[in-house]
């Protein structure tokens, strides 16, 4: 997924405030182009999150949303949870990069629960993020491990938010959600539109200049 993370990083403008979800989204931080300054927000109270420290230098009181040790860069600041979510809900975060279980053709996102009866439900900050950040970007494998499409007409898993996703980056394509439709703006090298459509559970449109 590193090429996909690179693609996301290239598309985030200089000066953006960015919240990265847990897992694959964390890779994006590794690919910020030289000369571009992006400030990372972590929901547990830090703006200016830096890279993971060496194994023996971690501070258990300096962690990210995934509860992993991180660092604070010069210019960083700490704040409490209500302020952190005011940044999120109040529309101050420019980009939020999240993983997905499913995304629908009109931008519904399911990423917190498979709805299985014996699962322990856990939501964290995902619903606040999709309700509040200015741009919701999904980074994900195009299909599940079993080869089922993750981009579908209608999500079957419980929703995180309705009509919230702006753009989807996968190993096969970059797809924009506009006017309740999916517009392919970029195909990965060697991927045809026909192959992409065959591996997608919703109807795709081709941007004319793609």
């Amino acid at each position, binding site marked *: 997924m590193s090429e996909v993370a690179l693609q996301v990083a290239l598309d985030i403008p200089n000066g953006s405030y960015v919240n990265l979800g847990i897992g694959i989204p964390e890779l994006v931080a590794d690919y910020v182009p030289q000369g571009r300054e992006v400030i990372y927000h972590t929901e547990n109270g830090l703006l200016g999150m830096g890279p993971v420290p060496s194994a023996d230098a971690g501070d258990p009181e300096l962690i990210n949303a995934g*509860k992993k040790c991180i660092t604070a860069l010069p210019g960083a600041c700490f704040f409490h949870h209500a302020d952190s979510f005011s940044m999120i809900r109040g529309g101050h975060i420019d980009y939020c990069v999240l993983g997905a279980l499913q995304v629908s053709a009109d931008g519904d996102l399911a990423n917190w629960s498979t709805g299985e009866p014996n699962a322990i439900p856990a939501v964290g900050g*995902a619903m606040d993020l999709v309700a509040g950040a200015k741009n919701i970007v999904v980074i994900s494998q195009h299909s599940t491990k079993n080869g089922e499409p993750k981009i579908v007409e209608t999500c079957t898993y419980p929703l995180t938010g309705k009509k919230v996703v702006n753009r989807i980056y996968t190993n096969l394509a970059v797809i924009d959600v506009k006017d309740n439709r999916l517009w392919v703006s970029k195909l990965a090298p060697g991927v045809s539109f026909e192959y992409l459509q065959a591996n997608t559970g919703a109807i795709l449109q081709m941007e004319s200049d793609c």
Partner: protein
Amino acid sequence: MIDKIVGSAKDAVSDIFDGAVVMISGFGEAGSPIELIHALIDHGARNLTIVSNNTGSGHVGLAALIANRQVRKMICSFPRTANSKVFPELYTKGEIELELVPQGTLAERIRAGGSGIPAFYTPASVNTPLGLNKEVRVFGERSYVLEHALTADFSLVKCRAADRYGNLVYNKTARNFGPIMCMGARTTIVQASEILPLGGIDPEIVITPGIFVKRVVHIPNPVHESVLVAENRRYPW
């Protein structure tokens, strides 16, 4: 003279009663007042409703409080984490109640509770299972759900330093829910790694004003939950 410093964690939690609502600070182990939680286990109050972002890990701290069957209900955003075993087991058996709340809604409900605001509207959880059966109102062209404030009988909070008035400063991302939980309870009990004289905390950098704090306990070298979990320790020792 105002002196909120109390001699021991045991004394600080001695009036927590059966059935109380208790907020516990922390995001994972960062900011979790583990010595105060252990004192609450020794004290033995039962049938508690706990408001905390997670449910603890291993068999120490919040997880040990749950394992000791003192908790009737958890109000949290993320009840499972790496090494969390106690809560999932009891929940699966139907022996503990869960109110799952989006994290920002949880924070704002606590802040509102401490600020005299009974309820508010938020866009988080609209059109999702967590927004079901909640009043929805449209402002502009957007829908919002009504959420009610949370208040507590007690809050247990960890900070880096305090003075005898209860003014507090925190450590890095261990601040998290601490400041709002101090506001959200009738009786806020704080453990501080360091006690400073009045004026020892620059008034410009006080994070929690002392008015929100009732009691302060000096815990000079708090244990780290992750260290105890790695050593497979269990509380009571």
